């Protein structure tokens, strides 16, 4: 039996901002939904929210939204009452996992037109001690660590990721601090071409190296900033794509996800984000692509660069370069057109600016990066458009305690393109 075909036919992304004082999380979700419907209609359709049959919600953290089951309140606000809605929460990988479940909703035949909607609004958290939001946001995230064995030790997102990056460095001598800094240079720089990005900046390797230490050896500019935003996709079955006369459907050809052990100390090698490897291999297999040749089979990758060092490891784990060579791949190709993961490189990684450039609105992030890949494949990404020759792209999400969750989505701009 051939696999059911599912396409992304509309994309809506709000600007990623440090703070929306003029919008609640459900108002942001409404904005992204409206943008996605408008985009679908620009893409040949003529639909309203009433035509959407179901919603899959990507929302990571109840403490950010100050609301348990925030999805049901969004469901009311976006006019989706009396239709099915399911919430996905998978840490930083929430977005990618939500795309996976929206794909399943359509591929299973349950819906022909499904809304995939991610939102997060973290900066309502506020730390009275310091008079700023960030330490309290970090605390709300740190509750994702094991609450008995890890949280009381002062574990948090950066110290969790840095453990794996440091172990990777011990094993391979890679990534070095300078190599990691190149990721920050690239992604802050790419964000300068993306009007929706929170942190567009022209920075040098030296600037990154001199920025304040967060968690050895991560510096401030190695880390993404938490953001407020919403992103939405509209997914359709093959029949619906034809019925709506969609001009540029982008087909989901591969979805892969995996949860590795959330206790980093239980892993065979601590310098691995095993979830990356399993998710990527599953997605490529479904798309009939080759893990060892993937770099030459796709036009771009929107990666989950919560921390610079983790993007470097992802180059290796997603199959772009051999293990131990991720750091040198970005460092030696700096300012060499046609090479490396740079915007004008052989495989542009995070042309949007990624999380370091755009910000990280957790539940929305992986949906934004998938939407960005869709716009790239439609050749409508704007100033950060990269050349589309192979017609394929991937988006990648990872997160949770010890980066235990990962999801990879493969997309193609032609029906039947493997």
């Amino acid at each position, binding site marked *: 039996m051939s696999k059911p075909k599912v396409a992304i036919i509309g994309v809506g992304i709000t600007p990623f901002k440090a703070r929306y004082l003029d919008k609640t999380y459900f108002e942001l979700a409404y904005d992204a939904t409206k943008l996605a419907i408008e985009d679908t209609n620009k893409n040949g359709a003529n639909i309203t929210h009433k035509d959407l049959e179901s919603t899959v919600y990507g929302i990571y953290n109840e403490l950010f939204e100050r609301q348990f089951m925030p999805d049901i309140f969004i469901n009311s606000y976006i006019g989706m009452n009396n239709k099915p809605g399911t919430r996905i929460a998978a840490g930083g990988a929430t977005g990618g996992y939500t795309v996976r479940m929206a794909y399943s909703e359509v591929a299973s035949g349950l819906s022909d037109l499904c809304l995939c909607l991610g939102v997060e609004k973290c900066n309502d958290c506020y730390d009275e001690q310091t008079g700023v939001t960030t330490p309290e946001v*970090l605390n709300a995230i740190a509750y994702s660590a094991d609450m008995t064995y890890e949280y*009381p*030790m002062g*574990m*948090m997102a950066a110290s969790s990721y840095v*453990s794996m990056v440091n172990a990777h460095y*011990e094993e391979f001598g890679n990534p070095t601090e300078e190599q990691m800094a190149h990721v920050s240079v690239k992604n802050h720089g790419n964000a300068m071409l993306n009007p929706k990005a929170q942190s567009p900046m022209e920075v040098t390797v030296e600037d990154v190296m001199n920025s304040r230490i967060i968690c*050895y050896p991560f510096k*401030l500019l190695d880390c993404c900033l938490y953001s407020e935003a919403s992103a939405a996709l509209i997914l359709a079955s093959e029949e619906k794509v034809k019925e709506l006369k969609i001009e540029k459907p982008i087909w989901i050809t591969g979805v892969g996800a995996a949860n590795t052990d959330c206790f980093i*100390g239980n892993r065979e090698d601590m310098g691995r984000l095993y979830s990356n490897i399993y998710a990527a291999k599953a997605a490529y297999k479904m798309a009939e692509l080759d893990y060892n040749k993937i770099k030459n089979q796709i036009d771009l990758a929107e990666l989950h660069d919560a921390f610079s060092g983790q993007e470097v490891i992802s180059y290796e784990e997603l199959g772009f370069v051999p293990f131990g060579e991720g750091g040198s791949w970005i460092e030696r190709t700096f300012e060499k057109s046609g090479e490396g993961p740079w915007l004008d490189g052989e495989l542009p990684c995070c042309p949007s600016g990624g999380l370091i450039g755009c910000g990280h609105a957790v539940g929305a992030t992986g949906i934004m990066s998938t939407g960005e890949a869709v716009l790239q494949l439609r050749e409508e990404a704007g100033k950060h458009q990269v050349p589309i020759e192979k017609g394929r792209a991937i988006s990648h999400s990872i997160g949770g305690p010890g980066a235990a969750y990962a999801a990879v989505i493969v997309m193609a701009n032609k029906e039947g393109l493997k």
Partner: protein
Amino acid sequence: MTEKFQDHQIRDILKINYKYTMGGQSKFFIEVMKNKKLFGTKCTKCGKTWMPPRINCSDCYEPADWVELNQAGTINVSTIVWYTTSAFIKAVPYGIGFIKLDGAETSLLQGIFSENLVPSKIKKGKRVKAVFNKEREGKMTDFFFVPEDEYENWISKPEYEGGV
């Protein structure tokens, strides 16, 4: 809408009190609190030693028995935290790391204290030993690790003591 937007923010706090059971893992915390001992578990079938302990082997689906572990171990990976959550921001800089206790197969996340907290002092391969608070509550914060060469200094402080 033409009216000029003015935002309104409300201060709030979410708070829930707990008295939570550690279930099958309770012995680990009781041994730390009462006896200053570190117990892991060993699978009755495959022999894998779990730390943090779990009374069921997740690999074999067989029971795991309690086994006392050495209080010395080796740092597998570590970091020093300089900027952190609101709950810990007053404690920076602090060291944490994954420590493989002698006899265990998995590594335990714990605080690594040092009189000279620099990356080289707590790097991979360094030997550490457990130091216990004199006043213990049966929590992970009842103990921490220190470099082996600082152990005597730490246990001579009035608030701390060595394990058994």
